């Protein structure tokens, strides 16, 4: 890029750190002066200033607007990050979450003053249990991994209640999200990996061989991380139940099957649902999420507090493990979970309705299959046949080209697309996982396909100029991640 005196490159402005030009004696907030100088701080007054610089409002707004322009976003273009479900975030949902009756209420106000909020939680619970056919839902988990924890702790509580404390082994496929084994370990289980077949499904024989009277549960993502539905899912459920364990289903990919499958019929005992995926609450650059967890009849009594129940006098929040929550495994978090996300998700559900949600799954799956079919002659699909909501390729089409999956992904940036998920799932060599979602038009998909095909053709004809040191056109060149980890600089000094 050209060097300019200002450091800007046209529209792309220079982005200094706040600490490089903010001033310690400046504030962008005017505060009413103190009238009563009396204090009751004991001897606890802060001794040293925190060295936090301030900016006036015009400077602060410009600072963050400039930074924002260095981000890719779903509102800017296609973001086919497999496993992450980057779909359009309806703005109505933002407006609803900001209604004072939702945003400006305190979690510990008297329940009589928050009946509408409890009603909303109750209605969201109705949608989640009706869409899955499950008995109950725990709303409070703060994100997907927290929802996994909720399900696994409910399983643990059920086992303990039934005198099965010796069951502490959890079976997890090699293809699982890293959160699954991490969650199992965090809930005090040991993790036993199960393999996968050549067609990308759980190796039933390996699973079956690893069952035993110390097995607590199996955690299966369905559709799985290869973007495929597990056809033997009910056999797996039946086998784990027969062996005395429970079936945890990772619902990260529920977007592919919402309105198409009755989850309860598959023998699922617990499944978290990422409201920030299937029900389109914004990802916000890494959260907040929300991970309500639906539970079977067997696990429902062990759901964590709080719970919302409908009574003759309205809605009641059960906050303590007594009465109808007597067997609750405990509390996972202060207060009641991600209300802001509940409002957005319910707005999304109401907008789509039962009919629209079914269409969501069908269009998401159609879009992924269209990409798979349109690229399979120039790239290498990891598995034969149709996919669900995401198309998975391995890197065999790049063999001998010198181009890696990473290079290929970075070249996508120059084409104006967010790259696909790279190197995940781990069971596929050089994996590229493409999830278009249902909110992309055919026109956008065709543009994405044309760019991806052109790159694949270029790589295979050994024209590596688009890949070497890519991206070339992004706000930053490739960043040195090794240096960042070797000499960590985690704050401005």
């Amino acid at each position: 890029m050209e060097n300019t005196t200002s450091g800007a490159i046209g529209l792309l402005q220079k982005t200094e750190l706040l600490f490089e030009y903010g001033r310690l004696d400046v504030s962008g907030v005017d505060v009413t002066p103190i009238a009563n100088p009396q204090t009751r701080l004991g001897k606890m007054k802060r001794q040293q200033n925190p060295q936090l610089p301030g900016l006036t409002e015009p400077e602060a707004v410009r600072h963050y607007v400039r930074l924002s322009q260095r981000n890719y976003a779903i509102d800017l273009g296609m973001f086919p990050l497999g496993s992450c479900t980057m779909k359009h975030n309806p703005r109505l949902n933002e407006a609803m979450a900001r209604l004072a009756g939702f945003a400006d209420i305190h979690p510990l106000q008297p329940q009589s003053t928050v009946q509408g909020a409890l009603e909303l939680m109750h209605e969201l619970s109705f949608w989640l249990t009706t869409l899955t056919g499950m008995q109950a839902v725990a709303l409070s988990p703060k994100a997907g991994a927290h929802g996994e924890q909720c399900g696994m702790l409910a399983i643990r509580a059920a086992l303990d209640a039934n005198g099965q404390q010796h069951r502490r082994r959890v079976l997890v496929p090699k293809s699982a999200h890293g959160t699954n084994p991490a969650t199992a370990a965090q809930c005090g289980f040991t993790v036993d990996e199960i393999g996968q077949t050549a067609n990308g499904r759980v190796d039933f024989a390996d699973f079956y061989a690893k069952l035993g009277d110390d097995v607590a549960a199996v955690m299966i993502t369905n559709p799985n991380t290869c973007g495929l539905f597990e056809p033997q899912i009910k056999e797996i459920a039946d086998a784990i139940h027969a062996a005395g364990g429970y079936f945890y289903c990772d619902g990260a990919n529920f977007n592919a099957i919402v309105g198409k499958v009755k989850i309860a019929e598959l023998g699922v005992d617990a499944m978290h649902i990422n409201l920030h995926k299937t029900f389109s609450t914004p990802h916000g650059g890494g959260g907040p999420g929300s991970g309500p967890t639906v539970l079977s009849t067997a696990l429902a009594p062990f759901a964590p507090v709080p719970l919302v129940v409908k009574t003759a006098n309205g809605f009641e929040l059960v906050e303590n493990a007594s009465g109808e929550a007597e067997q609750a495994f405990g509390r996972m978090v202060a207060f009641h979970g991600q209300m802001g996300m509940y409002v957005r998700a319910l707005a999304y559900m109401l907008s789509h309705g039962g009919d629209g949600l079914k269409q969501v799954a069908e269009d998401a799956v159609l879009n992924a299959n269209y990409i798979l079919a349109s690229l399979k002659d120039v790239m290498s699909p990891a598995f034969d046949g149709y996919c669900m909501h995401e198309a998975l390729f391995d890197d065999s089409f790049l063999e001998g080209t010198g181009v890696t999956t990473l290079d290929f992904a970075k070249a996508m940036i120059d084409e104006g697309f967010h790259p696909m998920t790279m190197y995940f799932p781990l069971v596929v060599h050089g994996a590229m996982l493409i999830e278009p979602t249902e909110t992309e038009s055919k026109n956008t998909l065709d543009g994405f396909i044309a760019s991806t095909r052109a790159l694949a053709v270029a790589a295979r004809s050994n024209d590596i100029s688009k890949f070497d040191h890519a991206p070339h056109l992004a706000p930053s060149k490739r960043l040195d991640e090794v240096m960042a980890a070797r000499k960590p600089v985690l704050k401005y000094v």
Partner: protein
Amino acid sequence: MRYLPLSDENRQSMLGAIGAKNVDDFFTDIPVFARLNAPIAELPSHKTELEVSRHLSAMAAKNVAAGSVPFFCGAGAYRHHVPASVDHIIQRSEFLTTYTPYQPEIAQGTLQTLFEFQTQVARLLDCEVANASMYDGSTACAEAVVMAARVTKRNKIIISGGVHPHYVAAAQTLAQNIGLEIMVLDASIDDEKAVIAHLASDIACVVVSCPNVFGTISDLSDISRAAQAQGSLVVGVFTEVMAFGLIEPLGAMGCDIVVGEGQSIGNALNFGGPYVGLFATREKYMRQMPGRLAGETVDLDGNRGFVLTLSTREQHIRREKATSNICTNSGLCALAFTVHLSLLGQKGLGQVAAKCHEMAVEVAQALESIDRVTVLTEAFFNEIAVSLPKPAAQVVDELAAKGVLGGVPYSRLDPNCSAQMRNVLLVAATETNTKDDIRALADALKEVL
């Protein structure tokens, strides 16, 4: 359907290109008995934007918004004024609708703001390093306990009677299944030092709070020295981050891990979430931290840039050996925190904090003048525990009936508390309160007692 761009014509032509007859060809792996062949009958059909807005607005209208009444609830969530520009920034598409910054070349906006967030948090709490956020204060506290056990290779935890009971519960939920033993001391208005008597060479950490759930602020330095002499860590907890504009931060008092709720800066009450957990510690424990970390580096041109780093701690690399299972955190709430704190600076922060304290002192003075009401908290920032002549839960309901949200009964947080604690009301004030609010609270309280 306004959110679905494919037309029926598109669908047909795409099916043709794929060589499929029907979209259901893609769903044949689903067992027949589990398939839903029509929209679920119990669910309504799609609605217009106007219909959805009416439906949800009607629900919202059934709630009493904090801003519409004299309002004094705290106990872990606080109502502060957030400048309009903060919400404007976090609603920018480029921040709102992006993902965890896995592709740093097109995510410098998010990464640099996280780096600024980490720097601000570390400076505010007076700690060496901070992570890029946790779900909230309670889960940050739970993770801190687990981290302390990992660092010390010990399994006993002592929690003071001043830590927010929900935080204690979240820590117990996480810790009890991985072989950690937690001892929780009796609820105490101002005795954080009670943990010292339980110190021993097998204690992983003590968990203490300042301000604590009763609003008490106290010097934790003696606790830190005593714990560290035994090789134990000190986890310092807070629920009101605005306090550190005015009072001594936990890092300065020798706490090894400092965790708490960051909601007060940048984030609305939201009925309890989403919030933003703050997590900070010493540099030597950096690789034991949970959560994301943004780090500085350079790009191929030698220009400064930022990336997610030290990810070998995390679940997507280490799987069952990860420091935590956390993946999605509170990115956008952390951004709101950073924008708000950039606007405040230490100057504005100090002024807002001083205003909060002023209002709390006024509340204390107003309540002290009421017969049979005792302010129990001696030194405080913006929250006080008040002893009433009858159960506080009953009093808040009676106050609500008079249009005053007068605080949080301690018994709501700890239903098994002593009879004495049952009469304790937690009352918080912030810069959003006025003298009229305080008068309304005092008048209403006199009437109901």
